[in-house]
């Protein structure tokens, strides 16, 4: 039996080629697979969401301050916008940002701030023995439920803490 010295080299070359192809296919599969699971968590593209009307910064701060006081006069339509991440991102994109803080980070911080204020409103209401859900608040609950499913752990964690204070 004659030993061909190149036979092993060719064989190893083919094995290596196969491994490379497999690796490439795996990478491509991961890239083009898209989000795992059924429905995407945040299906709305930020580009498709129009920003709020001018003065939203004032309305947001005022509504949050009223919520922290446990006021009965909180505007829940303003709050629904406040916990809407794509809307807040669109709003923040219109503002000036430096290199250290992006619109996305600002928007997330605003939503977390709003969620905390909402939790405080529920706690203050409970302290005064109230547990009614005013009209408009149910829509805020639904919006917070969506935030709780967010892939962002900071957002989902705060949303779950806020959900725990809800009247339901």
């Amino acid at each position, binding site marked *: 039996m004659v030993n061909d010295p190149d036979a092993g080299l060719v064989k190893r070359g083919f094995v290596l080629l196969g491994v490379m192809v497999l690796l490439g296919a795996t990478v491509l599969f991961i890239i083009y697979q898209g989000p795992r699971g059924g429905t995407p968590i945040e299906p709305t593209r930020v580009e498709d969401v129009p920003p709020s009307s001018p003065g939203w*910064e004032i309305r947001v701060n*005022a509504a949050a301050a009223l919520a922290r006081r446990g006021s009965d006069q909180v505007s829940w339509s303003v709050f629904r916008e406040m916990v809407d991440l794509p809307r807040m991102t669109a709003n923040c994109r219109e503002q000036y940002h430096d290199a250290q803080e992006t619109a996305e980070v600002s928007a997330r911080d605003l939503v977390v701030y709003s969620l905390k204020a909402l939790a405080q409103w529920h706690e203050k209401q409970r302290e005064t023995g109230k547990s009614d859900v005013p009209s408009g608040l149910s829509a805020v609950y639904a919006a917070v439920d969506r935030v709780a499913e967010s892939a962002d752990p900071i957002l989902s964690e705060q949303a779950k803490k806020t959900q725990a204070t809800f009247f339901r």
Partner: protein
Amino acid sequence: MSSGEPAASNRSAPAPGLPPVQPPSGRFIVQLFVVPGLIVLAVVLVLMAIAYSTSQNTPDYYLNRLDSENADIRWRAASDLAQILKRPDSGSLRWKADAHFALELAERLRKSLDELAQAEKEVDAKLTAHLAEMKNKGIAVPPADIDVHWRKIAALRNHVSFLASALGDLHVPAGVPLLAEICLADKSPDIKGNTLQRRKALWSLANLGANTRGFAKLPSDKQAEALEALKAEASGATLRAGWARTALYYLGSPPDSSDGVVHVDAVLARCAEAEDRFLREQVAQACNFWDGPLIEPTLVKLQQDDGHGTLIHVTEQD
């Protein structure tokens, strides 16, 4: 072996003309190192004791330096004091809970505000004359040239901003009336400078609200000391007495007379009507730290804000 013996005897025997070599004794080591060490330690301790006993880190020391004729000394004092006031309470309570210091700072802010108003008038008169002259010559004056005129009073404006900010860092709200005055001052020929000053003052007012709430957490002896000092100053018809009465009102010890007491909720309600959008946003934030019958109606109004008015962008260069 015999060849090693002469070498050993060479090591122990002194060379001709030299004294015999002996190992140092314990006493010699002590004389050489420990005694000088103790002398140096004693000198350092004495110097530290002198420095501590004659320490210049007192409120009065900074107030005197803020009054200096030398601008460099004033600025150094302002810079040092700003750093002290930003420390946690453990390192700055001596200043933050001192009612006399708060009233003295307010006196200096009053004086600086008057000087600034006078300087504004003078610059405005010169600028108006300059613009009229240029108009007669048919030369358009670029905005940058106008800014150069206002930059002449920038140092004075910065001093006002420092004093306003310092008053906001204290636990004694003696600065409320003056901060309110700055927040409400919407008429000024220097639009950019005044806009920035109002925003800074409103920020300080919000900060002061948070610090006033912190007064209740101070040691009881510090609280009693501050209230006693304010009560001693609260009688009379002077501005200073009004500042003291305002501070007493917000520290939960209402004065006998309410003359000169400035109510922050009324100030914030008026600021909520400002044309400056950023100022209205700040009002909404400041309402978190102050209470009063007008706070909730102001917030209800602001949560329906339609973004009217102007949004002047003021940069650090301005």
